[in-house]
């Protein structure tokens, strides 16, 4: 009997990372309850011109070669000989030598509200001759590569018929979520769900525990997930509740979007060593800097895993064929690694610190908004301080809330991301957190062990696709922010004073997927044929604001502006210049994106409100 039905055979999880992508899957038929049969796809990719090999990691790099750069057929993949670009390992290594043709960190650009993410802007430093691509297009190509790799390996189970979960940082705003979904649709993804990466890591922990997790956590626990990947740091807080005899998990808070990760740490060490080499009279070129960064990563891992090791030699190989004559010898010391990595990135700070930030110059908007404070622990302190009341209204937590606490007290920590392969960084982070807890006379938080640091997110995503079918525990929580649009108050104009602004809540905190909320009371007049722009805000702390509430005043750190949103009413069937009265409706889709719709009050017409409003402006 041939399989003709479109019931998915596999639940596929995709970790679309800043520095690399992975694909894991759960065989639905072969799994039973919390015992799952899963695997990780070996992804064929170019590693050299005309050379294809498989690896579970697909580096998230796109290389746009010159037409004379490669011989015919050297970009061929098992499934295509028509592609004029390379994705993966070859893109990364070749691109390091020719950065003007390399697209990297497309994911960070995708959530950068300061640029038009549909516009061909990458590589950002490419000369006019290079045909650039948009951040959206780059992400689409990575996702399409993964799809083709799956179809080549599993002809019996076409990708478009499987259940797909793609992960995103918890801190992605609605625009970045929508753009990720758009990239996936463009890559031919049909059944798509988005999942936050820290949640995926926790799902993986649940999956690998094979049921034991119910003994490892108890009602009243607050699990802090710390995910430090290659390019981003992402935090989430998940509370454990008991309801009708079952344990429930509620994601209660998320951190800000922080562009800070393991790559920054390796680069910091490479610059430190490069300065030493420069003092000895040798200046390294970009090729040598890259080799040095690799060497520093290996030396760092050796030094961090063995405190007795005093130094690690570092050799930067020559670029020319004279290896012995041209190589540069230097070393990295234990003290240097400790002061750079431990004190620089994981300082033992007080719980009350805030990350330092300085006013950005206008020009920095052209590049990625990298974190200005490298202290992961400082970002963590700021998050816990801001979220001190996150569990106040949660069932079963009211009695546990410590009124004197100055920050939210986690009881358990799950680490994720390659950075935490160094045990000492896990210990430092945990010790810092436990220092804060001890200062407020709270019990120390324990570590949830058994996470697979590289593949947890993809595996957890595949497991989530499986539990969504009703076969295991799910993390609840809905949207981790409340969303607002700005409304100008209708008060008499005072010369020289901007009319005061009110914030209208269009989507409350914790809206679950597949729910919608409509604002009947507040109407907007929209001019036909003209775009209406609204300033759009999010708040990760205002849990109590209900739909339609108008805020006259708010502390400035409680609402963050997320950019502008736009609705344009097409002129069909109307006179341009007419005013149509609309209300706003917000929907959290099945995919996990937020959709704002303008609905006409006097007819049943509706228009989608665009988040990425810079589209078409450039």
């Amino acid at each position, binding site marked *: 009997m041939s399989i003709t039905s479109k019931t998915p055979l596999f639940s596929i999880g995709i970790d679309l990372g800043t520095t690399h992508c992975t694909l894991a899957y759960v065989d639905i038929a072969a799994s039973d309850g919390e015992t799952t049969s899963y695997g990780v796809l070996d992804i064929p990719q170019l590693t*050299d011109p*005309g050379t*294809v090999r498989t690896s579970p990691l697909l580096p998230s790099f796109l290389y746009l070669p010159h037409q004379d750069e490669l011989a015919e*057929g050297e970009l061929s993949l098992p499934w295509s000989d028509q592609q004029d670009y390379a994705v993966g390992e070859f893109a990364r290594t070749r691109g390091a030598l020719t950065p003007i043709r390399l697209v990297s960190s497309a994911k960070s650009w995708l959530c950068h509200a300061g640029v038009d993410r549909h516009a061909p802007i990458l590589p950002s430093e490419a000369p006019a001759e290079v045909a650039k691509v948009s951040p959206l297009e780059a992400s689409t190509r990575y996702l399409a590569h993964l799809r083709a790799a799956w179809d080549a390996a599993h002809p019996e189970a076409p990708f478009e018929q499987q259940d797909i979960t793609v992960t995103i940082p918890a801190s992605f705003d609605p625009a970045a979520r929508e753009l990720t979904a758009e990239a996936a649709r463009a890559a031919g993804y049909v059944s798509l769900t988005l999942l936050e990466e820290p949640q995926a890591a926790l799902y993986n922990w649940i999956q690998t525990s094979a049921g034991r997790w119910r003994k490892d956590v108890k009602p009243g626990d607050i699990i802090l997930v710390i995910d430090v990947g290659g390019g981003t740091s992402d935090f989430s807080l998940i509370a454990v509740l008991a309801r009708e005899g079952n344990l429930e998990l509620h994601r209660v808070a998320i951190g800000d979007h922080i562009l800070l990760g393991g790559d920054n740490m390796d680069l910091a060490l490479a610059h430190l060593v490069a300065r030493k080499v420069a003092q000895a009279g040798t200046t390294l070129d970009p090729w040598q800097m890259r080799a040095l960064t690799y060497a520093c990563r290996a030396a760092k891992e050796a030094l961090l895993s063995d405190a007795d090791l005093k130094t690690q*030699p570092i050799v930067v*190989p020559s*670029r020319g064929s004279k*290896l012995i004559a041209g190589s540069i*010898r230097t070393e990295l010391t234990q003290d240097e690694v400790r002061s750079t990595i431990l004190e620089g990135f994981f300082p033992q700070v007080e719980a009350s610190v805030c990350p330092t930030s300085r006013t950005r110059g206008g020009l920095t908007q052209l590049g990625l908004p990298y974190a200005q404070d490298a202290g992961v622990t400082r970002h963590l302190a700021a998050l816990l301080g801001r979220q001190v009341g996150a569990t106040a209204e949660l069932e079963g937590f009211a009695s546990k809330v410590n009124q004197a606490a100055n920050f939210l007290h986690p009881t358990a920590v799950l680490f994720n991301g390659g950075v935490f392969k160094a045990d000492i960084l896990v210990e430092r982070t945990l010790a810092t957190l436990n220092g804060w807890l001890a200062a407020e006379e709270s019990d120390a938080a324990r570590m949830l062990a058994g996470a697979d640091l590289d593949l947890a997110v993809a595996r957890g995503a595949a497991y989530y696709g499986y539990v969504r079918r009703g076969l295991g525990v799910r993390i609840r929580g809905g949207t981790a922010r409340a969303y607002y649009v700005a409304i100008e108050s209708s008060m008499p104009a005072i010369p020289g004073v901007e009319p005061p602004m009110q914030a209208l809540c269009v989507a409350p905190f914790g809206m679950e997927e597949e729910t919608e909320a409509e604002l009947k009371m507040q109407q907007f007049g929209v001019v036909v044929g003209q775009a209406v722009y609204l300033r759009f805000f999010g708040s990760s702390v205002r849990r109590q604001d209900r739909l339609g509430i108008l805020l006259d005043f708010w502390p400035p750190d409680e609402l963050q502006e997320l950019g502008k949103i736009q609705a344009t009413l097409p002129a069909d069937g109307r006179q341009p210049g007419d005013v149509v009265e609309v209300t706003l409706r917000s929907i959290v889709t099945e995919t996990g994106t937020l959709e704002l719709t303008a609905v006409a009050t006097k007819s049943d017409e509706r228009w989608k409100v665009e988040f990425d409003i810079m589209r078409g402006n450039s």
Partner: protein
Amino acid sequence: MTNSPPDSHHPQVSFLRRIPLAVGALFRILSNPGFAARVAALRQNNAALKQTSPDAALQLLALLQRDARLIDFTQETLSSYADADIGAAARVVHEGCCKVLREHFTITPVRAEAEGSRITLNDGFDARAIRLTGNVIGHAPFKGSLSHRGWRATEVRLPQLAESHDTTVLAQAEVEL
């Protein structure tokens, strides 16, 4: 891509079967000049030997050059350098070779016993995988001490190559514009 290591040899032919084979061959050589020519070629070329494909060897060399700079290293004359400089380069070569072996092969010891321990080899042991040395006399079972555990590639994962790929280029010349 996974290739199994070559381990299929020609099937053994028993002595009793070899008698009629030899007699038949004798008469056929005498009566059939074409067959005689093929046997003559067989004896001259030692046709049981096979020529391995140079592509895989060249591919491995390219990998060792790419990741371990092995060809660069071996093309230099050591006499003009201090040991410290050679040592620094050797680190690059060592690390790179490890990476190539780890990524493209699964290598396991032929014998699991600790080196130096006494082991017994029964009749029919695989002489392709175990080398007898020293006082090699008598019949199996042989008793001896394991001086090297041996290595066996249990899996080979060489990259796939495009049809037009030139494997003789072990490292491309680089021109910076």
